[in-house]
């Protein structure tokens, strides 16, 4: 275990003051490792809050470079970063916020060939991706590897998230397979209100911290959705599906799948 030094006791004092967290909880956070898939709209707030909270090791995977159109919501990247690899830009900010954090970067796509290997190095996975093929890939890889993860999706003025731990409902219990290519627009096609990324990403970061400290109840077997136009938040109860193709009684998926992506999503933004 990590022994907190004097600076750390000050840095993390607002966590330590919380009866449910305390020094013990803070040490759990500092011993934890998290993989954030996507250093974009969701990955930005997730990484910033997890770094500030003192997560011991944060992995970032994203193949993209920072584009001017990202800056409206991807608050970990600054104007000077346009053109830089996102993982490099994000790692620099994480280190600046909290030198305690060890950052590992992968300037790459997550796909069937590397997913299990990368995921296996972390205690918790955060889905901050912008497309269905990788959302399903993260789900399948985490179910196969027995890893907990947080799902996140945003679109226009809406967001949705749930947390999976081994044995609870997975993404395929809710959505069996990706929608037909092109049926559901992504943010790059339909737009998204910038602050929505922060709203959803901070919920995901809070779930990660709850998971490691054991505080409260996770969003397991529940899907939280919100509509920022009305600020209505709704929680749907969902059950682990007996017929779920990956975590059900007779699973039909035994290897990772690289689904086809909408052509316009493949463009670099």
């Amino acid at each position, binding site marked *: 275990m990590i022994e907190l030094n004097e600076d750390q006791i000050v840095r993390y004092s607002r966590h330590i003051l919380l009866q449910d967290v305390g020094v013990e909880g803070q040490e759990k956070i500092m011993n934890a490792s998290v993989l954030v898939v*996507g*250093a*974009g*709209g*969701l*990955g930005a707030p997730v990484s910033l809050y997890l770094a500030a909270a003192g997560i011991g090791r944060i992995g970032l995977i*994203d193949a*993209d470079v920072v584009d001017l159109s*990202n800056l409206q919501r991807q608050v970990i990247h600054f104007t000077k970063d346009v053109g830089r690899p996102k993982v490099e830009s994000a790692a620099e900010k994480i280190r600046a916020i909290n030198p305690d954090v060890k950052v590992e970067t992968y300037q790459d796509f997550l796909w069937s060939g590397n997913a299990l290997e990368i995921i296996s190095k972390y205690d918790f996975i955060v*889905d*901050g*991706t*912008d*497309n*269905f093929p990788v*959302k399903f890939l993260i789900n399948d890889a985490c179910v196969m590897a027995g890893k907990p993860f947080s799902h*996140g*999706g*945003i*679109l226009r003025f*809406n*967001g*949705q998230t749930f947390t999976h731990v081994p044995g609870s409902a997975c993404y395929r*219990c*809710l*959505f*069996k397979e990706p*929608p*037909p290519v092109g*049926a*559901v*627009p*992504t*943010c*790059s096609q*339909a737009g*998204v209100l910038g602050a929505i*990324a922060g709203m959803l990403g901070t919920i995901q970061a809070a779930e990660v911290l709850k998971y490691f400290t054991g505080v409260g109840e996770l969003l397991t077997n529940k*899907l939280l*959705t919100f509509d920022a136009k009305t600020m209505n938040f*709704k929680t*749907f*109860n*969902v*059950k682990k*599906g*007996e*017929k*779920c193709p990956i975590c059900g009684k007779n699973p039909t998926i035994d290897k990772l799948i690289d689904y086809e992506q909408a052509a316009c*999503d493949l463009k670099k*933004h």
Partner: protein
Amino acid sequence: MAKITVNGESKEVRDGITLKALIEESGVLQPDMVSVQLNEQFAEREEWDRTVIKEGDSIDFLYFMGGGAA
């Protein structure tokens, strides 16, 4: 009439209505975009027109949301 719950709100529907008809009548514009949960369990798309809604059923329409990074 049967009393059911749709997305958390109480609703009365005619007896014998199928899940498919309920989806159409509920104004779901793009059925491809939703996952339907019947009593908290995923309802297979192929079974929507064979599934008859019963008194007390709870139906939720969950929308695909794919955004996050780029």
